């Protein structure tokens, strides 16, 4: 009986060793980033290239920008890689982040059902399009999760002079979830939604959704990267984190970003300014 128990425990430990690969000797950094970059598939392309070059693995926590910054604020990540410029600058301003760099951009688009119940009829104007949606009381699905995309969406509503939370009774739906879930919801209820192009191109459950508005200069979507302040959180892997940031803004990292394509279409456009120390 005793020997059986011993064998059982030994077997268990072996199983654990297999299930939890020894990560101790492996160099890695933890990066808090966004669902839009994860769901676009960029990270599966970008991080293996970085690991090959540097030997440093990147562990990504993909959540909304607001939550990613929060994780950085609590010291639970080494690097934050998000897309909400005002919030990023505030993060640095309050002493939680250092070494911030702009990395790349893509753009937001307005997607909606192909029968276009708000009669937007294409075009570039995002503000006019939102006004038409509000006028027609057509379903609009919002992230409402404090993500970069959500913050951008709220700025567009503000420019349109509409407070969707007050005026949107019955047609403005907030899902409080990631980009992909929000698109799933829009597809299911024939609603409009603001989405980043990367997630859209990689999204497979489109049903009747198509791009309604694109190309407005307001729809510009800038991504930035920064190190969590090591003087606030001494455990932050400063050196590895800085190596990662340097690589992202280096010609090689920038080229790797530019090389990521789906069906021949480029998803992110590198625009780092290089070293600014």
């Amino acid at each position, binding site marked *: 009986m005793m020997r059986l128990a011993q064998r059982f425990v030994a077997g268990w430990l072996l199983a654990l060793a297999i*299930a939890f690969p020894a990560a101790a000797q492996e160099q890695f950094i*933890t990066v808090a980033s966004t669902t839009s970059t994860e769901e676009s*598939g960029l990270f599966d392309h970008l991080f293996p290239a970085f690991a090959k070059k540097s030997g440093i693995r990147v562990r990504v926590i*993909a959540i909304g920008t607001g939550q990613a910054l929060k994780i950085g604020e609590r*010291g639970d990540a080494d690097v934050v890689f998000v897309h909400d410029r005002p919030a990023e600058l505030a993060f640095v301003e309050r002493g939680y982040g250092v070494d911030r760099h702009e990395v790349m951009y893509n753009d937001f688009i307005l997607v909606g059902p192909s029968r276009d119940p708000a009669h937007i009829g294409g075009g570039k104007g995002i503000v006019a399009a939102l006004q038409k949606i509000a006028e027609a009381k057509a379903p609009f699905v919002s992230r409402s999760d404090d993500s970069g995309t959500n913050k951008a969406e709220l700025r567009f509503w503000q420019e349109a002079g509409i407070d969707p939370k007050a005026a949107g009774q019955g047609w403005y739906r907030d899902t409080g979830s990631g*980009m992909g879930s929000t698109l*799933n919801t829009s597809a299911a209820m024939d609603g409009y939604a603001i989405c980043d192009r990367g997630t859209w191109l*990689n999204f*497979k*459950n489109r049903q009747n959704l198509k791009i309604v508005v694109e190309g407005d200069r307001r729809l510009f979507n800038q991504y930035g990267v920064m190190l969590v302040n090591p003087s606030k959180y001494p455990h932050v892997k400063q050196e590895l984190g800085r190596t990662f940031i340097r690589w992202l803004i280096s010609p090689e990292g920038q080229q790797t970003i530019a090389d990521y394509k789906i069906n021949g279409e480029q998803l992110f456009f590198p625009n780092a300014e290089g070293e600014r120390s």
Partner: protein
Amino acid sequence: LYDIADALAAAGRLVLSGDSALIGIVTLSLGVSLTAVLLASVLGLPFGAALAVLRFPGRHAAVVGVNALMGLPPVVAGLIVYLFLSRAGPLGGLGLLFTPAAMVIAQTVLVTPIVAAITRQVVEDLWREYGELYIFDGVGTPRIIASLLWLGRFSLLTAVLAGVGRAVAEVGAILIVGGNIAGVTRTMTTAITLETGRGDLGLALGLGIILVTLILLINATAHVIGAVAKRAAT
């Protein structure tokens, strides 16, 4: 309606291809959940039995409390464990957040009340039946508890299996404390969440079918072991 056949095909392709990422995800899922159930059993079985046997003030409140904790939402358990393990939290120095260990802790928190509550019920019934014999023999409480647990072992298998079901199926807690990091903390359920987010519903459902099949296999194995042991015991 999404094509179920598509999902079945996706599940079949995944299994047949022997995809190494899939194998990693499956072993991690089972490793985390079974470890959590093991820990929860070590804690929950004696605790539940003690609750059944001992008489102390506040016992009824404790029983109600444990029963209620069976309904603890995984996301709440995850959030609590997250706040403890966060660098800014009391156990931040351990650096456990976003590791499999954090997921084990969160699932142990979820599963222990289930094991304890069912154990309490099983052992209480046995205690009602045989209690007088033990008292007559003057056996000490720890030995009574051990003896009753052994006596009820076939029924207690259900308690443990209920724990396995809860642990393997939940996503709310491990998503928060694990972070769904590819190759490190990505499990079956968090992978399904991610693929749903990518709109790849076929693949998501395919993974779901594999998960359900695994749960079925675990239960079938437990059932066979239980039946064989029962026959051997009688």
